C-alpha cells in the first residue's frame, strides 16, 4: 500500500506542478506578474496584509496544523505504524518538508490567478486548479490535474479509513469483544477470521459515518475548514501524547481527563454549531446561549468573542485539555503498572535494552497456549515456525520449556501486536497468561540486577581473556626449554663421536633446562594456588631483620663469586610483625637473586635496608644495575608482563617471580613497588603492617 501511496503522491505533485507552471507562465508572465496584477485589485489588496484582527487566528491555525502533522490518523499511520525502520525518519525529515514546499509553491499564484481570471464569477476556490485549465480548453492538462486530484482523494480515503479502522478494531472493538465471554469462546477457534471481519465492518462503518457527515452537514464549508475542525480534534491527543513521552508523573487518570475535556470542548464549540446550522437545534443557542445563558454561547465561550470559531475552539479546548491533564495527573496516584510504563517510556534509551532482557513481568503461561494463540492469527504452521526460530535464538533449540518465561510472553505479545495492535495483543495474551502485578521496587530491582549481571559478565569476559593470555604465555614459555632439550638430545643422539667437552656442556644444558622447566611449572602452580585462595598464610610473630640476614647468608656465596658488594643497614630494634616466614623468605630470596642478576657486572653493589614508617615495616633492596624504564615499572609485577607486547622478552627468568612476590606481600596486606631512575639505583620496596 505504501508504494501505491508514494506513486500517487508523486503523480499528484507532477499534476499540480504542471498546473502551477501553466497558470504562472502560460496565463501570466511569471509570479511577479500575478502578484503585480493582484495588488492592483482593491478586493485582493487586503489579502496581502496581515490584519490585526485575524493575526491570532494564524497562530492557532499553525499550532493545530503542526500537531495534525503528527497526530492525524493517516499521518500517524504512515509515519509510525507503516514505518519499518526508525532510520527512515532521518530521510523523511528533509524529504517530506521538501515535498510540501514543492506542492505548495504554486498555491498562491494559482489562487490569485483564479481570482483574476474568474473575476465576478461564482467559481469555488477549491476548484481553481481544475477550472483554470478547463476554461482555456487545455483538455490534456485538465485530465492530468483531474486524475491527480482523484488519486489524492482516493489515497486520502484509503489511508484515512484504514488508519481509522485499525484504530477502531485494535483499540476498541477487539478489546471490547474479548471481554465478552461468549465471544471469547467462539473466537478462540477462529480468531484470525473474526479480526478480519471486525476490521472490514469498521472500514464500512467509517465510510458510512463520513458519508453521513457529508450529507447532514451543510456543504457550505470549504475543504480547508472541514479539515481544520478535524485538526483541532486530533490536536487534543497532543498534551497526553507528548506528556506521556516526557513526563514521568503523568497518570492514566490525567490522560483520560485531558482527552475527555478536550474533546468535550471541541465538540461543543465546533461540532455543536454545525449541527445547529444543519437545523438540528434552535439557532438561538448560537446567539443567546443555551437556556439563555450568554456565557455558554458555543462560539463565544465565557464572553470571548474576539476570535474566529477555529481559534476560539482551539484556545478553549487546549486550555481545558492541558489543565485537566496536569490537575488530573497531580491529584491522582500512579498505579505501579503505570509507573513502570512511564519509566520505560520516558527513559526509553536507558532502559529499553535491559527491559528486553528481563521483562518486568511475573506470571505463568504454558508455551503451547501462546503458540496456539499466535496460530489463531497467523496460522498454526507459521506460528510453529516463529516459535521454533525464537527457541533457536533463545537456547539454540535445546529445550522448549513447557512453562513460558517472560521472554516468551513478551515475544508473543510482539508478534500479535504486529497483527492486531498493541492494545489488543496485550488483552489477548492476558487471556492465556496468569499475571501478577509487579511492584515498582521489583521492577527497578530487576533492571538494576540485569545491569549488574551485564557488568559482572564483562568482568568475567576480561578475566577469561587474561586466563587465555596466561595459558598461551605459559605454554610458549615452556616451549623454550623444551626446544633446547630436544635439540641437544638429538645432537647427542646423532653424533656419538662428540668430543668430551661438547658432550659435557650439552648434557649440562639439558639438565639446566629441565630444572628451568620444572621451576616454571612449580611457579605456575604456586600462583594458581594463591589466586584461587587454596594457599593460605601461616602467620607467626617474627623478626624481619633476622629473616633478611638469613636470606643474605644464602646468597652470600653467589655475591662473592660475582664480586658484588653487599651493605646491610637494618634498623634496630625493629618491631616484630606477624608474617608467614617461609613466604616472606621466598620474597626476599626472589628480590635478592633479581638484584644479583641485574647488578652492574663489574662493580656490583647491593644495599639492604629495613626501617619503620608509622605502623609499617619497610624493606628495600637496591642494586646498581640498569635502570628500569618508568613505563615498565608498574608492569613487571604482572604475570609474564611481556604479554602486553609479544615481541619484547624479559632478559631471563620465568616471568612469574615478581608476580608471586606481589601476591605474597598483598596477602600480608602490604605493598610492593619499584623505583628506578638514572640518578638513583633500582630499588624494590615492600611493606608489612605491624598490626595485622
Amino acid at each position, binding site marked *: 500500500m505504501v508504494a501505491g501511496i508514494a506513486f500517487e503522491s508523486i503523480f499528484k505533485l507532477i499534476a499540480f506542478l504542471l498546473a502551477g507552471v501553466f497558470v504562472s507562465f502560460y496565463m501570466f508572465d511569471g509570479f511577479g506578474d500575478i502578484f503585480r496584477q493582484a495588488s492592483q485589485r482593491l478586493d485582493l489588496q487586503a489579502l496581502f496584509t496581515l490584519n490585526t484582527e485575524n493575526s491570532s487566528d494564524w497562530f492557532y491555525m499553525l499550532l493545530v496544523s503542526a500537531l495534525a502533522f503528527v497526530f492525524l490518523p493517516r499521518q500517524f499511520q504512515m509515519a509510525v505504524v507503516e514505518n519499518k525502520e526508525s532510520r527512515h525518519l532521518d530521510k523523511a525529515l528533509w524529504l517530506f518538508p521538501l515535498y510540501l514546499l514543492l506542492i505548495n509553491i504554486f498555491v498562491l499564484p494559482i489562487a490569485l490567478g483564479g481570482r483574476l481570471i474568474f473575476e465576478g464569477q461564482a467559481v469555488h476556490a477549491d476548484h481553481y486548479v481544475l477550472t483554470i485549465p478547463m476554461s482555456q480548453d487545455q483538455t490534456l492538462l485538465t485530465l492530468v490535474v483531474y486524475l491527480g486530484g482523484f488519486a489524492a482523494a482516493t489515497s486520502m480515503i484509503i489511508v484515512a479509513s484504514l488508519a481509522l479502522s485499525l484504530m477502531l478494531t485494535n483499540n476498541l472493538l477487539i478489546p471490547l469483544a474479548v471481554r465478552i465471554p461468549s465471544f471469547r469462546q467462539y473466537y478462540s477457534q477462529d480468531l484470525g477470521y473474526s479480526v478480519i471481519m471486525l476490521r472490514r465492518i469498521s472500514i464500512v462503518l467509517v465510510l458510512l459515518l463520513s458519508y453521513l457527515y457529508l450529507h447532514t452537514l451543510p456543504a457550505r464549508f470549504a475543504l480547508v475548514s472541514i479539515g481544520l475542525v478535524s485538526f483541532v480534534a486530533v490536536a487534543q491527543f497532543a498534551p497526553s501524547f507528548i506528556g506521556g513521552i516526557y513526563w514521568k508523573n503523568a497518570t492514566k487518570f490525567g490522560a483520560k481527563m485531558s482527552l475527555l475535556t478536550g474533546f468535550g470542548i471541541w465538540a461543543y464549540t465546533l461540532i455543536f454549531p454545525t449541527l445547529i446550522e444543519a437545523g438540528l437545534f434552535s439557532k438561538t443557542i448560537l446567539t443567546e446561549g443555551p437556556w439563555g445563558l450568554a456565557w455558554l454561547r458555543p462560539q463565544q465561550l465565557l464572553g470571548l468573542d474576539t476570535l474566529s470559531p477555529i481559534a476560539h475552539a482551539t484556545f478553549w479546548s487546549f486550555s481545558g485539555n492541558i489543565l485537566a491533564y496536569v490537575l488530573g495527573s497531580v491529584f491522582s496516584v500512579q498505579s505501579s503498572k503505570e509507573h513502570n510504563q512511564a519509566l520505560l517510556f520516558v527513559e526509553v534509551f536507558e532502559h529499553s535494552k535491559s527491559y528486553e532482557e528481563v521483562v518486568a513481568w511475573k506470571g505463568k503461561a504454558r508455551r503451547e497456549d501462546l503458540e496456539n494463540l499466535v496460530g489463531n492469527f497467523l496460522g498454526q504452521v507459521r506460528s510453529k515456525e516463529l516459535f521454533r526460530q525464537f527457541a533457536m535464538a533463545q537456547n539454540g533449540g535445546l529445550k522448549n520449556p513447557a512453562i513460558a518465561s517472560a521472554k516468551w510472553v513478551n515475544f508473543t505479545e510482539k508478534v500479535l501486536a504486529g497483527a492486531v495492535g498493541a492494545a489488543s495483543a496485550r488483552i489477548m495474551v492476558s487471556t492465556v497468561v496468569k499475571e501478577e502485578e509487579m511492584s515498582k521496587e521489583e521492577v527497578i530491582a530487576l533492571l538494576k540486577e540485569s545491569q549488574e549481571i551485564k557488568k559482572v559478565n564483562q568482568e568475567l569476559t576480561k578475566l577469561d581473556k587474561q586466563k587465555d593470555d596466561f595459558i598461551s604465555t605459559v605454554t610458549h614459555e615452556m616451549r*623454550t626449554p623444551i626446544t633446547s632439550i630436544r635439540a641437544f638430545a638429538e*645432537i647427542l643422539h646423532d653424533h656419538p663421536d662428540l668430543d668430551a667437552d661438547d658432550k659435557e656442556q650439552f648434557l649440562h644444558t639439558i639438565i639446566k633446562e629441565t630444572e628451568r622447566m620444572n621451576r616454571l611449572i612449580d611457579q605456575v602452580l604456586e600462583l594458581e594456588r594463591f589466586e584461587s585462595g587454596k594457599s593460605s598464610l601461616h602467620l607467626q610473630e617474627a623478626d624481619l631483620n633476622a629473616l633478611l640476614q638469613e636470606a643474605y647468608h644464602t646468597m652470600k656465596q653467589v655475591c662473592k663469586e660475582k664480586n658484588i658488594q653487599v651493605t646491610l643497614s637494618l634498623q634496630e630494634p625493629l618491631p616484630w610483625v606477624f608474617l608467614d616466614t617461609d613466604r616472606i623468605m621466598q620474597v626476599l630470596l626472589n628480590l635478592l637473586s633479581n638484584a644479583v642478576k641485574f647488578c652492574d657486572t663489574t662493580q656490583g653493589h647491593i644495599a639492604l635496608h629495613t626501617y619503620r614508617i608509622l605502623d609499617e615495616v619497610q624493606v628495600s633492596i637496591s642494586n646498581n644495575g640498569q635502570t628500569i624504564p618508568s613505563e615498565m615499572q608498574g608492569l613487571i609485577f604482572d604475570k609474564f608482563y611481556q604479554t602486553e607486547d609479544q*615481541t619484547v622478552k624479559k632478559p631471563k627468568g620465568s616471568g612469574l617471580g615478581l608476580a608471586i612476590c606481589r601476591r605474597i606481600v598483598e596477602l600480608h596486606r602490604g605493598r610492593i613497588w619499584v623505583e628506578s631512575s638514572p640518578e638513583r639505583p633500582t630499588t624494590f620496596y615492600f611493606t608489612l603492617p605491624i598490626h595485622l
Partner: protein
Amino acid sequence: MKQVVNVLVVDDEPNILMSLDFLMRKAGYQVFVARNGKEALEIVERQIPDVVILDIMMPEVDGYEVCQYIRRQEASKHSKVIFLSAKTKEADIQKGYEVGANLFLAKPFSTKNLLIKVKELLAEG
C-alpha cells in the same frame, strides 16, 4: 667443491643459539650468530647470508622486522629465510610468510628436519 655457504642464526635464547650454531657448523656451513634482531641487522650489513634461521620474539627488533629488512636490501633480497618460532598461531605463521619468509618451522624443532629443509632451500638456488 662448491663455494662456502653462509648461515645466519638469530635467537635471543643462548642455549638454542648454541645448538643451532653447532648443527650448522657440523653440516659444513659458515655460521654467523646474532643474539637479537639488532645484531642480525649488523651482520647482514657486512655479510650476505645464504640462509637465515630466525626467531620471532626478540626485544627491540623482532624477527619479522629483520626479515623485512633482508627482503628490502638488494644484496640480501634472495637469501632464504626460515622462521623458527614458538609462536605458532595461524596469524603468526601467515604474517611470517607475508613479510617474505621461505619457510616457517615450529619450536621445538627436529634437528634432522631443519637440516633437510636448509639443504632443500639451498638446492632451489
